[in-house]
């Protein structure tokens, strides 16, 4: 058969199809679907039998009634979230201290004296006081909470709880003009924003997908949990008796996380009524059966896939950042280091927002990775206040023996409850880390939306901090 013949026949076939379509009339799609369903039902009737009189999954349905109920759904969600954080906060303290004393207190002096014996002072400073200490700090501060948080989160995921969260949040997101599946991408963002941005692929509509990508940064990511936890412990837990401190600081962290969810909804609402106008599309979400997670395998995969992966990334970014910190605090112009120049210059501006120059500089240095913010802040504070007896000299990222000594440094640096609260707010609302920005660009292929996703949160952060600070100054 020649090509010409074939295309002639094809047109003929299409013509016949068209005529038949008219003959069959409307609703042919439904007819096809119903005959398909009839066949499926017939086969299932012949092959499936359910033993006993209890319907399958009756237990699942009972649990679902409770965890997705209008009344108890949200409280259960918050309690589960709080339990995960509480276990993380209280469980990570001891191993963190252990790692720090090994990597910083014991190994660092040995390495330093070893390096000093054959290197010029600036090289050993750059490599050991800068790069090595940054890495040691990141490992000791991040590894324990991650090794606890990720397996717990993965267990919840394997159990089948995440779709229930999405189910609970669905109506809220729909009212905000966004896709209900955004609840899932948001949950992924609690682990890592870059992962959350990639997960937004499950949303088909480009409009809703963009909203999910832009608002993902409002999910506190793993890199920001330690900041939240530490500051909440010092400034908010410190206000009450030690007995209540753990509970109150957990409450503060959950509060900030919930605030992030609120921002996610508000920004989605604004976007879907302004630049990304449109109706929310419907979708069906299957609530999977609860499955008892296989604990050992979950531990293994969450340690390998998530914990070590995220830790490795943090180390890769911390090493050059450590060098930068060492350099800016050891290069002097007119007798004052670069870091101090910037801090003095930006301080008046920062105070308007209830922050300080140290925090701003730390956030600039930490753009590659949020997780090194706290060590950078501590080091810079010591540098500015000229405290002696802690750390190892200029530009050294160090670990402190206890939270109390961290508190001493911060209070000596002029920190107040307001600085603490605003740091927590600013840590929630600022630009995504460089990996996330790059991921947003790869997913959207648009410089414009990448820029919006980057700038929107930081502008919001300054606005929120400004109003908090002004209210504080008004009443305090």
């Amino acid at each position: 058969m020649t090509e010409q013949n074939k295309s002639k026949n094809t047109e003929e076939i299409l013509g016949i199809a068209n005529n038949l379509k008219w003959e069959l009339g409307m609703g042919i799609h439904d007819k096809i679907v119903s005959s398909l369903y009839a066949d499926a039902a017939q086969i299932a009737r012949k092959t499936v039998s359910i033993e006993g009189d209890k319907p399958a999954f009756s237990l699942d349905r009972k649990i679902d009634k409770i965890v997705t109920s209008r009344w108890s759904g949200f409280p259960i969600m918050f309690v589960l979230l709080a339990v995960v954080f509480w276990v993380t906060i209280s469980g990570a303290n001891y191993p963190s201290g252990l790692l720090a004393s090994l990597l910083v207190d014991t190994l660092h002096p040995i390495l330093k004296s070893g390096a000093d014996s054959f290197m010029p002072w600036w090289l050993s400073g750059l490599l050991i006081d800068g790069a090595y200490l940054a890495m040691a700090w990141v490992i000791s501060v991040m590894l324990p909470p991650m090794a606890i948080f990720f397996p717990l989160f993965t267990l919840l995921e394997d159990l089948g709880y995440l779709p229930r969260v999405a189910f609970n949040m669905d109506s809220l997101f729909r009212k905000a003009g966004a896709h209900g599946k955004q609840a899932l991408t948001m949950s992924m963002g609690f682990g890592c924003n870059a992962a959350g941005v990639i997960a937004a692929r499950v949303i088909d509509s480009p409009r809703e997908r963009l909203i999910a990508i832009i608002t993902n940064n409002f999910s506190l990511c793993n890199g920001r949990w330690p900041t939240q936890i530490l500051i909440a412990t010092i400034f908010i837990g410190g206000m009450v008796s030690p007995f209540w401190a753990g509970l109150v600081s957990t409450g503060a962290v959950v509060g900030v996380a919930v605030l992030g969810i609120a921002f996610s909804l508000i920004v989605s609402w604004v976007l879907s009524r302004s630049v990304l106008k449109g109706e929310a599309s419907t979708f069906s979400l299957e609530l999977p059966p609860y499955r008892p997670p296989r604990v050992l395998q979950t531990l293994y995969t969450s340690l390998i896939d998530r914990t070590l992966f995220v830790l490795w990334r943090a180390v890769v970014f911390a090493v050059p950042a450590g060098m930068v910190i060492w350099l800016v605090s050891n290069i002097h112009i007119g007798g004052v280091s670069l870091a101090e120049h910037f801090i003095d210059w930006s301080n008046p501006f920062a105070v308007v927002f209830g922050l300080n120059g140290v925090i701003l500089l730390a956030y600039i240095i930490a753009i590659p990775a949020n997780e090194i913010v706290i060590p950078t802040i501590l080091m810079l504070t010591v540098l500015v206040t000229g405290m002696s007896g802690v750390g190892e000299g200029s530009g050294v990222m160090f670990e402190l023996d206890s939270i109390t000594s961290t508190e001493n440094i911060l209070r000596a640096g002029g920190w107040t409850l307001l600085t603490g609260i605003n740091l927590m707010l600013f840590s929630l609302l600022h630009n995504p880390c460089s990996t996330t920005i790059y991921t947003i660009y790869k997913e959207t292929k648009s410089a414009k939306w990448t820029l919006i996703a980057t700038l929107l949160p930081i502008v919001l952060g300054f606005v929120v901090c400004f109003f908090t600070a002004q209210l504080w100054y008004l009443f305090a």
Partner: protein
Amino acid sequence: MSSQPNCENCPVHHKGNLVRLGIDMDKVDYVVALAGNPNTGKSTVFNNLTGLRQHTGNWPGKTVGRAEGAFSYEDDSYKIVDLPGTYSLLSTSTDEEVARNFILFGRPDVTVIVADATRLERNLNLVLQILEITDRAILCLNLMDEAKRNHVEIDVRELTRELGIPVIPTSARRRDGMDELVAMIAEVASGKYICKPHRVRNHTPQLKHAIDTLSKKLRETYPGLPNAEWVALRLLEGDQSIIEALQNGILDGLVENETPIAI
């Protein structure tokens, strides 16, 4: 027309389309597609077959896009493509289109349909739709442990008879039944096991007549088209992507492989 009756059995007969779909076909004897409803454990089956350890989550939509892996069994190498989970191949979401196009145009040597044994009826809707497109398929009846726990019993022999394709009960999380699955993949891929897939019968007489007329015409023009009835149905529905595939000869290329393929 250079009709080659054996080209159906030649492992490279659909290579061109697979390469076009982005599959690296170097040193691969067979291509296996993994399809199924969301959250039936496709990723777990995929990991078991390939030895990869992608994280598998208990929520629908975990696998976005397409994951690929490879394994070898006896002397043959297999490329396995994990398709996104879908409830049907009828309506058009991106996921459903990815899955449908791959099975239709890529024509994998075997399509393994992973189904949730505890929700067989709903899963069968997709199974039947896939069987309309391809006749080399295996039903991997997964989550058998869960079915047992919930007192759901399935007559596997009867199901095999009804569907006309091999049915392998598995509990992928515990690796139960995976060896049998691999062995069956090899049998279907090599053509030792010939499937006689179930085709939907419950059409109204009017629709049946329309399908018969159209599929007869289709077979005249495209002899060897394995899924003429399915194409006829799509044409009756006015499916734009199938009409285009017919007009620009993609569907044609599937049948005869007349265009030389650069390897």
